[in-house]
Structure formats: structure tokens, C-alpha cells
């Protein structure tokens, strides 16, 4: 006979506000097998946990029901408490009387009755619980970081500095990411290059960091500690081992194309680097624009290369890496032209987005840092900045606030005034969101010292007339419509996940939200983890982030990886599927229903009479199984069972719920 203890939590007023916890405690005491029941205001607090530990010791409890919140919240807390007191942690069952009861009901009597039923069902489950022991698996102490922007670089450096190897996969030919495109950074106006390029060099030099450039992660198999990752590298048509980075090829290449790095404002060569400080400083050939690769003519680069590094025959390369942890740091894009028909983006060259404005500001950009408008190279004297372009627009754009635009627009207006002292910057805004250290002061400086005129309202239309860009907006504070004949219009376009982020999420088996940003395991308490063990998030992959936040994130994710790698073996959750081979008929229906590819066929050798016969049965890979239970539902023989959630246990719970009257008497 089990000796079960029931611990009812008031959760302040979260539970006690709707449920009479004393009544629930009293009712629990009357359930057969329950030898102890009590309640406390905050069971998860240290005094609460001590109550549990004392009862385990004094009453020799061998099963616990904690009637409190969702297991997602505190199951681990109470399992640890039980373990410390000498009880197998899998003998603890949460009865969720908060999310499933007090939060969703109004009537106290009914809520109390329901809470009691939930507790009774949990007791029936615990009565049938068996102590479980985690299995132990080895791990590979090498990390994969996807994305070489500021977040990915920071994660890679932190992990490498902690003494572990890192593979950094970057889809472009240079690391640096979005930050490499920026001119200055808010709120200090540090030059982005000055703080970024040394870090880029550090990443490239670090003996523990291996760079995989022009590469993408195309397949991921395995599980925490033991991932096998397939990396696909696009051809660069230049052998980087031989190349010495003299860039003679770039100098002599006759084919020009709009530079994506410069947001189409400048030209680049078909062979070359995105920008002079690119790391690695090695050129690639843009195949679509290479005369040789397209038409078989030219080939100048091949001829003049002093080290014969140009290789037009180069093919895509695919290889595998074994890693123990993965950090995703794929960063962000901004909404494209199709979203802004009324603003004439994509139609008028002098309507640009904020990243293009960064390139105009950058001393290594297409205008060498002089603000010139794209149409005719004139210096614009009236510049209109439109914030919330596509953000906070659930109807036609994105419902969320892109978070960084208020600050960078204040920066843009400030820099504009510094460079064009007789010019005027106008900013259409909705609310100024400047919640960061020194941020509000920065915005006020833009207004007071640098003369930015903030207009509270949205812009409805932008069109060209008489060589000017007419902006029709509103200032709701004055109660007047505003018309400005501008020379340049800058859209603070909504931040979106990187193109392809959704596909990568599927490869990684990480859930993403409706907008494509990756979901954190817990939005507050586990912000850099995902629900897939061993996969972590850094930077804007999880939502709009500014640089300090992305860097903090990145270090957080790296710390998680370092903690993981500090183990020599990993404990595997024992709540996984198990096959009763004597019942298994070998139909293997469980194999296709398993979302984690954790079930395989195996040959079972049995002795029947004097003969040895073999028959197929299912077998579960303990490393891959996540304990979802789909197989146990599909199993026709009742051979597949989820440990800790056996069919017998679940039916006992259901029975308890069906039979109970719900009244505490």
C-alpha cells in the first residue's frame, strides 16, 4: 500500500481566490492511501518545499500529489524537492488546480469540487506510479551556431572561450550580419564598424571556431548532446585555401550588379567581397552575373589570379558535423516593397528603407557617408522618416511593434542634422518607445539639439510631384493634416524573421509563431531555450531585438551550452515509451506515427520449443523519444506504453474523474 501525501497550494490568491483549499485538503485526507495532506500559501517557496521534505521523512511518504499550477511551471521544482528528501522524483504528480481550475471558473463551490476531483484523479495515478531512473547518454562537446551576425558571433566566441569547439555556419560570404550594414549605433553613436570589425577578426582567428561560409544547415538528426548536422555550402568559384585576398580579380572584373549589401544603392562586381572589411576577406563569384559562367566569355579573373585560385568548376559541397548543441542566430529581414504601395516604395527611387539609409550614412557605403538621394545624387534638404511602416498594422502588415525603429529613427535624424546642418528632418511616429538605458535621453537630444520635428500620426500617401516626394500625413496633436514636399523619404520597415527561417525551424523541429519568429521554451524564464532540448536561440530569430539585447541573448545561450557541456554524460528523461516485447506483434504501426523517428524495427530471437525463431518487434531509441505517447495510442496490441503515463494509469485517472461525485462529502 502506498503512503501518499497531498500538498495543496493557495498560490497567493491565484488558487485560494476561487478554490477553498482547506476543503480540498480535508477531502484529500479522506482518500484511501493518503496519509498526509496539508496546504500552504506558496508551496513552491522554500518553506513550502521544506514542508514537503519534512512530511516525506516523517510520514515515510512514497508518493506525492502537489495540487498547484501547471506541471510546465513547477513540476521540476517539486521533483527536485522530493529527490532531495530521498524520494524518487517520478513519484511526484502535479494536480493542476490553477490553469485548469481556479483561473477558469467563477463559482467557488463548483471550482472547489472540481479541484477535489482533479486531486483524486492524481492520487489514483500516483498510486500506480513506479520509480523511474534516467538513462545516461554520452555527448559531443562541440556546438553549432547558425548565423554569423552579432548574436551568432558572440555565442561562438563565448562558447569557444569556454574551451569548446564551435562550427559557425553563415549563409553569406562574410560574417558580420546586419550590424555590418549599420553606420552608427544608438544611443552612443558608436561607429558600428569600430566595434564590430575587431570582433569579426577575433571570430576568424579563434582556434576553436571553424567557419562554414556561404553555407546552410540542410538536415538535422539526433538529439541533445548528439546531433548530426548536414551542412550545404554553395560554390564560391574561388579556392579560399589558395586565395591571398589581393582582390585584383575584383578590380578587373567587367561585370557590375546592384549590391545587395548596399540595398541596391551601389554596385558591386560579379567577383569580389560585399565590403572591404569582409571576414574572411575572400571573394566569391555571383554566378548569375558572371560573364564566364553565364556565357562562357571573359574569364579575366581566372587569367590574372596570381595564385590560380579561381575555379569555375567548383561544385556545391555537402558534409556532416557531429555536435552536442545548436544555437540559432539567423537574425532579421525587413518587410519588402509589396507591403508599401501607398508609400511608393519600389516605385520612387527616393523612397528608401532604413537599412538603405544606414548604407547612405556609412563611410564605406555607396556615397562614402554623404547623404545623397538615390535619384540624382543631390543632398536632400527635407527628409521625412516614417515610423511603424508595416509594424503595429495587423490589417495589412505585422501586428507587433518592431521595437528598434523608434531608436534608430532618432539616430537617423540626429546623424542627418550632423551631416546636413541646414536640412530638416521630420519624423511621423505613433508612440515613441524608448525603454532602454539612455534611450529616452537620446530621443530628446534628437528633438532639442538636432531639431528633429516629431509629428504624431501616420502617413497615408506618398507620391511624386514636380520632382519632390509629397508626403501626406497627419499630426493628431495639432489636429491637422500635414503635407511635406520632401527630397527623401525613409521608411522604418517592420522587422521580420529572415527569409527561410520557417523552413529552418522545421529542420530543427523548433516551433515558430505566426510571424515566423521562433518560440522560446518559456517567454520569461527560459528565453534562450526552445522546447527542443539542445537547441537555443540568440538575437532577432525570436523577435525584434536591438544590439545590446541580441548580445545578452547570445551570451545567455552560450552559457546554456557551456552548462550542458560541463556534463560528461547527459541524463535522459525516463518518461519515454517502452515496448512489452511479449505483446508486440511487430505490425510497426508505431513507426510512422512517431514524430521523432525514435522507433525502429528489431529482430527478436526467441526459443520456441527446441527451435530458435526470429520475429520483428518495435524498439524505442531512448535518446530520440520525447515521450509524446503517440505510439502507445497507435499500438493495437497494448504493447507500447509510456513510462509514468501507462494506459493503466491514465484509465485509473479517467475512472476517478468519472466516478467521483465532485462533492467533498
Amino acid at each position: 500500500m502506498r503512503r501518499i501525501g497531498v500538498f495543496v497550494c493557495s498560490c497567493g490568491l491565484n488558487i485560494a481566490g476561487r478554490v477553498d483549499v482547506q476543503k480540498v485538503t480535508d477531502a484529500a485526507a479522506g482518500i484511501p492511501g493518503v496519509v498526509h495532506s496539508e496546504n500552504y500559501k506558496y508551496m513552491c517557496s522554500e518553506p513550502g518545499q521544506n514542508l514537503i521534505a519534512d512530511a516525506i521523512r516523517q510520514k515515510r511518504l512514497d508518493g506525492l500529489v502537489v495540487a498547484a499550477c501547471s506541471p510546465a511551471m513547477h513540476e521540476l521544482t517539486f521533483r527536485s524537492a522530493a529527490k532531495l528528501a530521498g524520494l524518487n522524483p517520478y513519484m511526484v504528480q502535479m494536480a493542476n488546480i490553477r490553469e485548469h481550475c481556479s483561473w477558469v471558473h467563477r463559482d467557488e463551490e463548483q471550482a472547489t469540487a472540481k479541484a477535489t476531483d482533479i486531486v483524486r484523479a492524481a492520487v489514483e495515478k500516483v498510486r500506480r506510479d513506479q520509480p523511474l531512473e534516467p538513462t545516461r547518454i554520452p555527448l559531443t562537446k562541440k556546438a553549432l551556431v547558425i548565423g554569423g551576425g552579432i548574436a551568432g558571433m558572440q555565442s561562438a566566441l563565448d562558447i569557444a572561450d569556454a574551451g569548446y569547439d564551435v562550427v559557425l555556419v553563415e549563409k553569406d560570404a562574410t560574417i558580420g550580419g546586419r550590424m555590418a550594414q549599420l553606420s552608427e549605433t544608438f544611443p552612443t553613436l558608436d561607429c558600428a564598424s569600430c566595434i564590430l570589425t575587431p570582433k569579426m577578426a577575433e571570430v576568424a582567428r579563434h582556434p576553436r571556431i571553424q567557419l562554414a561560409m556561404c553555407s546552410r544547415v540542410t538536415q538535422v538528426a539526433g538529439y541533445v548532446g548528439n546531433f548530426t548536422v548536414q551542412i550545404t555550402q554553395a560554390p564560391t568559384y574561388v579556392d579560399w585555401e589558395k586565395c591571398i585576398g589581393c582582390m585584383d580579380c575584383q578590380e578587373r572584373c567587367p561585370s557590375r550588379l546592384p549590391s545587395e549589401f548596399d540595398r541596391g544603392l551601389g554596385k558591386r562586381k560579379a567577383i569580389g567581397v560585399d565590403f572591404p572589411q569582409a571576414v574572411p576577406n575572400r571573394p566569391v563569384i555571383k554566378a548569375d552575373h558572371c560573364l564566364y559562367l553565364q556565357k562562357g566569355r571573359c574569364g579575366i579573373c581566372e587569367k590574372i589570379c596570381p595564385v590560380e585560385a579561381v575555379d569555375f568548376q567548383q561544385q556545391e559541397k555537402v558534409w556532416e558535423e557531429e555536435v552536442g548543441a545548436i544555437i540559432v542566430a539567423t537574425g532579421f529581414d525587413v518587410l519588402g516593397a509589396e507591403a508599401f504601395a501607398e508609400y511608393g516604395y519600389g516605385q520612387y527611387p527616393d523612397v528608401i528603407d532604413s537599412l538603405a539609409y544606414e548604407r547612405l550614412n556609412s563611410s564605406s557605403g555607396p556615397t562614402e557617408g554623404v547623404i545623397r538621394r538615390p535619384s540624382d545624387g543631390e543632398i536632400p534638404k527635407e527628409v521625412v522618416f516614417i515610423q511603424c511602416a508595416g509594424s503595429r498594422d495587423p490589417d495589412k502588415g505585422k501586428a507587433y511593434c518592431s521595437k528598434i525603429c523608434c531608436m534608430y529613427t532618432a539616430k537617423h535624424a540626429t546623424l542627418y542634422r550632423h551631416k546636413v546642418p541646414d536640412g530638416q528632418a521630420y519624423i511621423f511616429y505613433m508612440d515613441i518607445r524608448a525603454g532602454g538605458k539612455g534611450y529616452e535621453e537620446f530621443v530628446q537630444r534628437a528633438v532639442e539639439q538636432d531639431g528633429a520635428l516629431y509629428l504624431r500620426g501616420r502617413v497615408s500617401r506618398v507620391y511624386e510631384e514636380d520632382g519632390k516626394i509629397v508626403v501626406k500625413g497627419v499630426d493628431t496633436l495639432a489636429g491637422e493634416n500635414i503635407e511635406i514636399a520632401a527630397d527623401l523619404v525613409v521608411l522604418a520597415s517592420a522587422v521580420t524573421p529572415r527569409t527561410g527561417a520557417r523552413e529552418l525551424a522545421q529542420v530543427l523541429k523548433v516551433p515558430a509563431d505566426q510571424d515566423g519568429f521562433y518560440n522560446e521554451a518559456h517567454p520569461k524564464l527560459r528565453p534562450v531555450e526552445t522546447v527542443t532540448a539542445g537547441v537555443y536561440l540568440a538575437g532577432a530569430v525570436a523577435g525584434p531585438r536591438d544590439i545590446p539585447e541580441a548580445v545578452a541573448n547570445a551570451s545567455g545561450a552560450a552559457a546554456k551550452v557551456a552548462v550542458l557541456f560541463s556534463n560528461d554524460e547527459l541524463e535522459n528523461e525516463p518518461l519515454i515509451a517502452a515496448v512489452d516485447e511479449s505483446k508486440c506483434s511487430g505490425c510497426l504501426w508505431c513507426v510512422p506515427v512517431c514524430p521523432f523517428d525514435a522507433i525502429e524495427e528489431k529482430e527478436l530471437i526467441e526459443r520456441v520449443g527446441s527451435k530458435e525463431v526470429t520475429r520483428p518487434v518495435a524498439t524505442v531509441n531512448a535518446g530520440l523519444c520525447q515521450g509524446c505517447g503517440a505510439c502507445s495510442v497507435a499500438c493495437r496490441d497494448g504493447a507500447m506504453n509510456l513510462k509514468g503515463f501507462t494506459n493503466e494509469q491514465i484509465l485509473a485517472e479517467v475512472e476517478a474523474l468519472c466516478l467521483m461525485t465532485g462533492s467533498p462529502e
Partner: protein
Amino acid sequence: MKLSRDKLKSSFLQKVAEMSGEDIASCYQCGKCSAGCPLEAAMGILPHRALRLLQLGCEEEALNFDAVWLCASCHTCESRCPRGCDLSRVMEALRMIRLRGGQSPVHPQEVDEEILQRAPQQAIVSCYRKNIS
């Protein structure tokens, strides 16, 4: 201006919400509708203020918001509203409440004879439908 619970929960507001089919609370007063309104100059007031008056529960002011008679139902506001709130429909609701209350800004016998001669039927029928109780 005095605000109160009763004012914010009046049956009038409910009626406007039902007749327009629009969620008045969804408007966050960005003014994009006003900025693009082709008749705003004639109105002499920014049309998005009608929504604000409703949000504040100002029945009398909303029913005296004469810009409703200058709304052409062109749906420019609706086409650009980030919140999917159709101001044209809110204007219509305010108009209908006044028309059904017996107010008519247009009287057929007072319309200029020349206009009646020259204007297409479509314009006359539209105008009467929008302006005569």
C-alpha cells in the same frame, strides 16, 4: 470634459457598434484615415476624431459631428487603416442614426434646378440616399 462609467457604456455606443459592424475600441488614433481623406479640407475637422468621440462616450458631440455629411464613402480610409476599422461604416452609422431621427441635411425642393438638370441620376440617387431621412 467629464468621463464616467455610464458614459463609456451607453446604449448609443452599442448601437453605433452594431450598425457599423466595427469595433470602436480597435482604433488607436493614428490618423491615417484623416491623412488620406479627400474631403478632409471640406470637413474642416479630422474625420478620425469621430472615432475618438465615440471612444470617450461623447454621444452629443458625435451626433453633432457634421463632417459625416461630407463623407463620400470612398473607402480610402478603410483601404489603409492598420487596424481594419472601417471609418466609412462608422460615418454611415452616425448618419443613419441622425436620418432616422428625422434630420435631413438635404431637402429635394431646395436642390439647385441646374444641378438636377445636369447631374447624372446616379449622383442624385446616391445623394438622396445618404442625406434624406
